[in-house]
């Protein structure tokens, strides 16, 4: 009996290692939020332009997504005439490298320039962090 329990525990822990994604599909469209950048009220806009399959799998057979995303900032201060302008389109994918191993994530995406994006189980964007003028800007939704 003891042996059987050990075997079952070993089996269940082996199963726990298997990494299987749900394949959550990111929703297309755009989102806006208000943030302050360089003391200027700024609109942060994220637009998901195209979602494709990455046609590549991780070690567990999970296929990744490839997401064409535009990130933009638009703000100005009428008193100082300072402006915040930024617009960049880049590819994000959810094939992340974890401990030197490729692993597809359901909710985390990485952009070409190191930007990150987090989505929820419904495919809605929750947070995008990207480099702007030497610091990281985070837009939450």
């Amino acid at each position, binding site marked *: 009996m003891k042996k059987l329990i050990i075997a079952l525990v070993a089996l269940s822990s082996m199963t726990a290692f298997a990494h*299987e994604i749900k394949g959550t599909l990111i929703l297309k469209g755009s989102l806006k939020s208000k943030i302050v950048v360089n003391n200027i009220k700024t609109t942060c806009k994220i637009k998901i332009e195209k979602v494709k*399959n990455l046609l590549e799998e991780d070690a567990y057979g999970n296929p990744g997504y490839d997401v064409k995303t535009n990130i933009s900032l638009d703000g100005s201060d009428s008193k100082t005439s300072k402006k915040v302008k930024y617009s960049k389109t880049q590819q994000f994918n959810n094939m992340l490298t974890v401990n030197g191993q490729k692993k597809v994530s359901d909710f985390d995406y990485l952009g070409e320039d190191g930007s990150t994006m987090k989505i929820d189980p419904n495919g809605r964007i929750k947070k995008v962090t990207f480099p702007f003028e030497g610091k990281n800007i985070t837009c939450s939704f």
Partner: protein
Amino acid sequence: MPKKLLLSVCASALLFNGVAKADEIFTTVFNVFESKKSETILVLSAADGRVYKTFKSEENLKRMKSLVGQIVRLDYTVVQGDEARINAIRPAVPGEVDPKVVDLNHFRYNELRLVAPTDFQSMEEVENIFDNFLNDGDKGRSECFKRAHIWSYDMWSKLNVTSEKIFIFWTKRFSLLEDYEWWFHVAPMVKVNGTEYVLDSTFFKKPVTVETWRNYFMKSDKITCPIVDKYQDYESHQWNRLCYLMKVPMHYFRPYDIEDRDKKGIERNHWVLDELQDARRSFWGWDKKYEGLDSGKPTKKH
């Protein structure tokens, strides 16, 4: 005898002796059908799937029809091409053939029937079969499952080759994001020294490995497509994979037949005439080449 006639008789005799081959078979008469193309009656033999021909007359038709469903001994001669002419046909004498030992009806499910794919010794043999597949080169004319079915049937009935079918199923995720109109594709598959080769003459010029076949349709060599045994494995995992492969016996016609097997327990290791009747229309000249594969009922459309 005039010299011309004598020469003609000699030439005919030589030709006949050169190509004619007499043989006999024990079989179940599965279908009898009057040819619309020639003055013959077509007899579909259920043991080997071959269509045997005999002369047309009301009396002969009545006799042939009386044999439908019966186990018979059929003596025949193969004449030019692969046309088999009936010399004699009679019900088998009790004890003459044991249906438990000899597989006499491949149009009926038989739980003892084994459908392991033929394992060839040389690639040349398989390439030869592939090169002789009927292929109109017209994908718009027919669907893959119909072409695959006739190729499988031809291999079995003409060459005694048992093939498998390999299905690739694309998930909703793949179809939606790649804007791909098909949800499955299928082709016959055989083995050569233990390695599986797909015979998909619509898309390839030679037999190819499963990997090559899969990569072609996935447009990537980085997608694995898990091989699954149950239709539900595909059906219930539409978002975390892009594709699945399923290997089934050659008799499975459509994906729905696999679904029926896995959900309702309806097994297939036999041919269904209505399906062959439908599938034969995939090819130009089907009405001549496959005239005997006709149940007499209207062709089903899928």
